[in-house]
């Protein structure tokens, strides 16, 4: 328990030293929703289902993007810690390797939860996105597991790749593939078959669809359940692979 609270306290202190970190952590997705979502809604008059605005549709995408972004930024902090030397020193502190990763992910889940609450509340107040209280438990679970899954996935690469520039290249490619070949920005039905298959094989799609179902009730319950299970498996596999990568830090 000491180790987990110590890691959370450490991460919190580091984030609190910099206003940019705080803005990025808490308000960046909201800005995306306000600028990109409102822009598309106003200029293209986009609506997916009758009575569903693009802002309401895009809310799930923004929340998933936030999980994805937090994971990417936090995994980059492995490089920062490695450059500062503190990474290796921390590996001699009284904690196990899984505790180290869990502490980091718990902090990120906390940030993602606050970020989601701010985004959803202001989306409802400013853009009139309907709130669906019955979906909140599922939404919380999706944000929590989503953040953990992407963090472990990114950590796997951050721990295996030693060069900062190589990692940046990988994350740029990931951003492009995962975000655009998914249901984050648009519904998948009108897509060409190959792109649709790629999108359905994409864990971001699984997370977005679950969150979309939780926020505005869009989607088929059976398919959503399958996607939720698939994402859980993705998270578990990423966790064990990340632990293995951390144990092999020499």
């Amino acid at each position, binding site marked *: 328990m*000491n180790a987990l609270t*110590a890691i959370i*306290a450490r991460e919190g*202190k580091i984030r609190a030293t910099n206003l940019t970190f705080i803005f990025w952590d808490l308000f960046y997705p909201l800005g995306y929703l306000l600028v990109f979502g409102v822009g598309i809604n106003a200029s293209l008059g986009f609506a997916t289902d009758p009575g569903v605005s693009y802002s309401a549709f895009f809310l799930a995408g923004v929340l998933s993007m936030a999980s994805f972004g937090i994971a990417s930024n936090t995994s980059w902090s492995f490089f920062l810690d490695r450059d500062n*030397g503190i990474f*290796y020193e921390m590996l001699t502190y009284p*904690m196990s390797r899984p505790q180290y990763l869990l502490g980091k992910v718990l902090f990120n889940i906390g940030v993602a939860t606050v970020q989601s609450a701010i985004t959803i509340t202001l989306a409802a107040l400013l853009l009139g996105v309907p709130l669906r209280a019955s979906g909140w438990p599922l939404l919380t679970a999706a944000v929590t597991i989503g953040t953990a899954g992407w963090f472990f996935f990114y950590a796997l690469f951050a721990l295996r790749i030693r060069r900062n520039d190589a990692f940046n290249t990988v994350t740029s490619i990931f951003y492009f593939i995962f975000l655009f070949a998914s249901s984050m920005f648009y519904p998948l039905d009108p897509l060409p078959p190959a792109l649709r298959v790629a999108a359905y094989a994409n864990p971001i799609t699984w997370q977005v669809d679950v969150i979309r179902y939780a926020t505005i009730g869009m989607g088929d319950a059976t398919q959503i359940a399958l996607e939720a299970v698939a994402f859980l498996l993705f998270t578990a596999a990423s966790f064990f692979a990340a632990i293995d990568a951390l144990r092999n830090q*020499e």
Partner: protein
Amino acid sequence: MPCDRPCSGKPGSRCYVSEMAIQVENLAKVFGRKRWATFRPGSGRPDIRAVDDLSFSVRRGEIFGLLGPNGAGKTTTLRILTTLVRPTAGTARVLGYDVVRHAVDVRTRIVVVIQEQAAELLLSVRDNLLTFARFHGLAGPDVRRRADHVLEILGLTPDAGRKPQDLSGGFRRRVQLAKVFMVDTPVIFLDEFSTGMDPILKRSVMELLRKEVANGRTIVLTTQVLTEAEELCDDILIIDHGKQVARGDLNTLKLLTEQVYEVALTFDRAPDNVDALVAGYHVVRRQIAQNTLLIALQESESRVLELVSTLAAQRRLLRLEINGASLEDIFIALTRKETAS
């Protein structure tokens, strides 16, 4: 060895009693080539055997020095003992806890100053210490008071609110070392701890380290500064190519390198032909500073006196000093012998 006596740990936790602080048996570490390197030209390069069948133990409450030339395997050995690297073969135990099987138990009982600089650059100096202490389960007013005391003794009080990213390398090293005094872990590992320290601070840190040992803590250190080891260490292990070259306290090591003498001659003017004059002798080390010639040589007493007479005949000799070997001479003589064999 596990025991059934009550111990100070948490209820139900494993309790180990060990006379020795460190026990290392047939330890080996081989760094293999990357798998992809197999398909590259020149991939016939062998694996690197950084530690090779090393065995030693360290008694509680002593300062143990691990010495060796660059690439000897000192840091790898230390990284195995501090659970950063897993051994390829053999065992290593800290206070009876196996570094692989009971890594967290080991980490709970050690504090490590790694060779590289390590600091939380974005946190203040004081927060660096408090954050570290929290990992050892220490928080609250007592810890804050202790942090203030540690900042004071290491001359960091004026910089307590500054971030290490704004400090010089030497000050960052102080922050790193300050953590040793924030906790009471029984074993301290120091990898080249004095790098970047000024001589005055180094002296006061060495004094502080001696006090920690007097209070029952054990220190394992590596260093390239042999005078430091000579002054601090109760017991020394010299390794090269991952293997033991020599082991013992300073006097024992001197016995291993009998007939190594250090001769200092000060002339009114340094002789011109020193190289020619010492050519027939087995010189370990030679240095000319102004009018003083410092030679360490491995020869019989009569040969040493013969060389001194020859040199004294060249110029007016103002001062002569003949000593037994220093740790540096011993180190050079032993590691040379090892390399030659």
